[in-house]
């Protein structure tokens, strides 16, 4: 069943960007001005120019007000459209005019003028591949429960009430007044925009239903399934593309939408009609085409312990599967009582190539959050966001840094200097001849590692003092009850939790390299540390036999081997216990958390990382998340799971995802599906955090590389999101082929 007319599908696909040109989904700024009727407003360039003019007039006002006025300007003047082929309106702000006009400028001001020394340090760290740090507006989840319960008018009403209450306790400060005013200005603009959209829809034959639903959303919380989808979509566009903050979850949508879905069915709306609404909703995100994919999550547990999976959860998967899309991407919170048939449905999608799905452990998330001090209720209702990160609902946690754990090892082996640039970036330390034991070297590694973490935390803390200055968030903040209670923007400590997450990278490469040093240098004494470092410095040129020996050595993390797994765990324990709970930015007054997450850094930081003792050459791809190094999971899926679940992922609040590769032949048939289920549940029961699966074989991937035209639908899970095989670089494809070749 298709759930959507082909012509509608094509219409939506062309709505956000032109289909004939090259579309760079990684660069998320998308233009399609020609698509709109010019009588409905200005084009993108005019908007930006006028925003700059308007902002000059009010330059002395707080950023919150300037931002809200810019927001209002865009909503009033941007082009809009409604079409009978589409159940959702279109607002021309896909290229984020406020980012261009204000946020970019304010960010540069902070990094270049207010704290230039921090900006400089940040650039250096990025250039050397030590850490990638940026002011993070990318990992935010609105409080969708409040959004669905209150609607826009209810949210504004609560803001007004909160302002009154607060003013009874004290005279509101200028910042508090600016915050509440910014919310009021933004909401007025939202109501005007929705009215404008409703009028526009009213003029188009075939859009009366959309028009009426939009009308109702001005004054009401959503009363129907379709209205709820519209609201979800509108808030997404308003926050992500206009306010300029990534909405990193569309919400726990099976739970949130089910009551309205059920009621619509009871009122006689057909299931087909509701599925078509859902298909149109999904296709918006497919068409927007965010490179990292748009997350939405399902499942979890109710307060009484029963599962949140409901009949609509199944419909959700069915429609997604039938569309054959990978964007939005789906996260499933798996508990021991998540219905097996639901998980089998998801696993069946995965083995048939629709693998834009990750399984996240409900129990592990709860334990980790509670270990870090969260209440039972907050832990139960936590959001899954981004790739597989999580935080308590109503919290605003950033994740603005990727740290390269290979660098401290380079420092250890080069007297504190970077192995590529030779720069003194680490702490001064001894010559390699002076390491008398492995323990001494490992101790030095940890000292260098903690120093690097301190350096990164310092840079991040200083930048995060200016998050609100760079990008205040009236609309997003208004969804958080605590922001209203405190009269404070979510960017400067108004949210329920205000944590900063350290994303630590390349666990397997570090563990494997240290294992090699342990075995070859100190235990078996086959080579001196100096000889090894000489080979590394030569990037193994002239040492190919040595490189192969080190690369082939079977003691690699991810294969349930005692030594590398123990070293990996020790690195995690050392880093997470050090980072967890450290204070973050003064203004945010939150804490640091710690996860093992690499995103695309395995490629980008890999290019800047020296040859390593595990036989990896300079510039080669590094390992992902808590998975084995590329192509080194020789003992297969069960061993990978055993290794990953030794890491005590409940001792830190952050992700520790396992990327699993499986052969199509292993997962065929009923046996194969049951085996996938058993792998998943063993992972969950043993305390794993998140698991994602690629089902592929090297032959098919090689064929797809040779004949891309025949594999235009082939999608691959990169690292928490999917892309089309044909859209990744050859070297990235080669990495996956190597991984597939090693599958047993």
């Amino acid at each position: 069943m298709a759930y959507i007319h082909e012509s509608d599908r094509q219409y939506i696909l062309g709505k956000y960007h032109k289909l004939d040109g090259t579309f760079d989904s990684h660069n998320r700024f998308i233009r399609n001005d020609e698509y709109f009727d010019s009588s409905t407003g200005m084009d993108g360039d005019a908007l930006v120019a006028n925003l700059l003019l308007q902002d000059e007039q009010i330059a002395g006002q707080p950023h919150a007000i300037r931002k809200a006025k810019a927001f209002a300007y865009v909503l009033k003047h941007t082009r809009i459209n409604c079409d009978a082929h589409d159940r959702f309106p279109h607002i021309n702000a896909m290229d984020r005019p406020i980012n261009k006009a204000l946020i970019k400028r304010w960010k540069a001001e902070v990094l270049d003028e207010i704290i230039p020394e921090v900006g400089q340090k940040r650039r250096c760290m990025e250039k050397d591949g030590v850490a990638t740090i940026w002011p993070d507006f990318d990992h935010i989840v609105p409080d969708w429960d409040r959004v669905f319960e209150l609607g826009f008018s209810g949210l504004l009403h609560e803001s007004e009430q909160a302002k009154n209450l607060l003013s009874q306790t004290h005279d509101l400060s200028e910042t508090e007044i600016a915050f509440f005013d910014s919310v009021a200005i933004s909401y007025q603009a939202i109501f005007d925009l929705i009215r404008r959209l409703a009028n526009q829809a009213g003029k188009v034959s075939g859009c009366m239903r959309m028009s009426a639903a939009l009308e109702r959303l001005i004054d009401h919380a959503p009363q129907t399934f379709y209205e709820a989808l519209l609201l979800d979509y509108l808030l997404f566009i308003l926050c992500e593309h206009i306010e300029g903050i990534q909405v990193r979850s569309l919400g726990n949508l099976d739970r949130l939408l089910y009551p309205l879905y059920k009621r619509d069915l009871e009122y006689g709306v057909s299931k087909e009609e509701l599925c078509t609404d859902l298909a149109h909703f999904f296709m918006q995100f497919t068409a927007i085409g965010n490179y990292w994919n748009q997350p939405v999550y399902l499942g979890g547990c109710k307060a009484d312990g029963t599962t949140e999976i409901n009949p609509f959860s199944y419909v959700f998967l069915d429609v997604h599967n039938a569309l054959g899309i990978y964007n939005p991407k789906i996260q499933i919170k798996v508990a021991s009582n998540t219905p097996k048939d639901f998980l089998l449905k998801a696993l069946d999608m995965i083995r048939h190539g629709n693998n834009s799905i990750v399984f996240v452990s409900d129990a592990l998330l709860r334990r980790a959050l509670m270990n870090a001090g969260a209440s039972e209720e907050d832990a139960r209702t936590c959001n899954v966001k981004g790739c597989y990160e999580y935080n308590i609902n109503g919290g605003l946690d950033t994740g603005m840094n990727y740290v390269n754990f290979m660098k401290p090892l380079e420092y250890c082996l080069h007297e504190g200097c970077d192995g590529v640039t030779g720069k003194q970036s680490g702490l001064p330390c001894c010559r390699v001849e002076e390491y008398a034991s492995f323990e001494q070297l490992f101790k030095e590694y940890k000292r260098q590692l903690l120093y690097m973490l301190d350096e990164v935390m310092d840079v991040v803390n200083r930048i995060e003092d200016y998050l609100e200055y760079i990008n205040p968030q009236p609309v997003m903040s208004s969804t958080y009850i605590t922001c209203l209670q405190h009269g404070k923007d979510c960017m400067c400590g108004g949210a329920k939790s205000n944590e900063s997450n350290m994303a630590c990278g390349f666990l397997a490469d570090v563990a494997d390299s240290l294992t090699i040093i342990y075995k070859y240098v100190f235990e078996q004494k086959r080579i001196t540390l100096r000889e090894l470092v000489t080979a590394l410095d030569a990037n193994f040129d002239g040492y190919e036999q040595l490189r192969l020996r080190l690369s082939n050595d079977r003691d690699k993390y991810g294969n349930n081997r005692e030594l590398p797994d123990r070293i990996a765990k020790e690195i995690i324990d050392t880093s997470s216990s050090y980072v967890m709970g450290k204070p973050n930015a003064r203004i945010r007054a939150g804490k640091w958390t710690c996860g093992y997450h690499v995103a695309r850094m395995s490629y980008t930081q890999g290019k800047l990382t020296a040859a390593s003792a595990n036989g990896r050459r300079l510039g080669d791809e590094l390992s992902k998340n808590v998975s084995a190094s590329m192509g080194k999971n020789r003992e297969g899926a069960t061993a990978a799971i055993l290794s990953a679940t030794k890491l005590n992922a409940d001792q830190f609040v952050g992700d520790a995802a396992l990327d699993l590769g499986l052969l199509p032949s292993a997962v065929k048939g009923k046996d194969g599906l049951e085996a996938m289920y058993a792998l998943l549940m063993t992972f969950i029961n043993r305390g794993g955090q998140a698991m994602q699966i690629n089902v592929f074989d090297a032959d098919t991937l090689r064929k797809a590389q040779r004949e891309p035209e025949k594999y235009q639908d082939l999608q691959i899970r990169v690292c928490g999101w999917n892309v089309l095989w044909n859209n990744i670089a050859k070297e990235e494809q080669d990495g996956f082929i190597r991984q597939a070749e090693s599958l047993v």
Partner: protein
Amino acid sequence: MDALISDIKRFAVHDGDGIRTTLFLKGCTLRCVWCHNPEGISARPELAYYAERCLQCGVCAEVCPNGVHEFSDKGHALNRDLCLGCGKCEEECLGNALKLYGRKMDVDMLFPVLLEDEDFFRNSGGGVTVSGGEPLLHAEFVRELFEKLKKHSVNTAVDTCGHVPWDAFERVLPVTDLFLYDIKHIDSAMHKQLTGMGNERILENLQRLSECNKRIEIRMPFVPGCNSDDDTLHGIGAFLGKLNIERMRVLPYHDLARGKYAALNLIDTMPQVEAPTDELLAHAVEILHSHGVQAFSGRE
């Protein structure tokens, strides 16, 4: 007690119930032309050499105590007769071009390896399968191993060609949960032609086994041109239909193992035929169904 192990495969999904670890033992009583585990036939250790992966580095020659590896202008040559199966060359081979099939391992050595995936066994109803070669050539070893596994409540399965004395079955019966039992042809003369032996003992053992109240899955390598004709299928169906069989897996022939023959320096006997089509498989399954056999395609 020990046995010669040719390989251990973890996450074996189609060798019995659930997720299993399959232990391959060396030595076989049949010589099936299509054999896809030719490394299991001989009861001696064998060194496989994948020439295309060889880096010609000569490390194997340096570590071999018996002069198996020789390097000359013509490249890398192997004196296989001199190999005693120590495995040193495999360990040192930089190109992964060498693989030793056949390491002596005793039950105590194997036990922790086989139990590594115990959690997965428990969550999937899986366990350990012994295969080969013909594992019942090592019936006493299998019994000792399975007794130990049973004490840990691990599910056990034997994958057998059936061509062993009944006594071998009797030894493992009390500690085996599932038998994976091969049927290759119903006509004894044809069976002899294709496997080197007649099928009388195989059919008789199966008949006796089916009276022992043990779970049996029949496995039939389905090889076009060898045993794919309707008469053969009807014959097999009629025989099995009278027995106490749980299910039957029809395994479509493929020649992925051809490379192994060359690597082991064995004469390639694999039929030069295409893998059966889905339609042909479905047809075979239908014939078997008509005799009341719960057959299904191994592709499903």
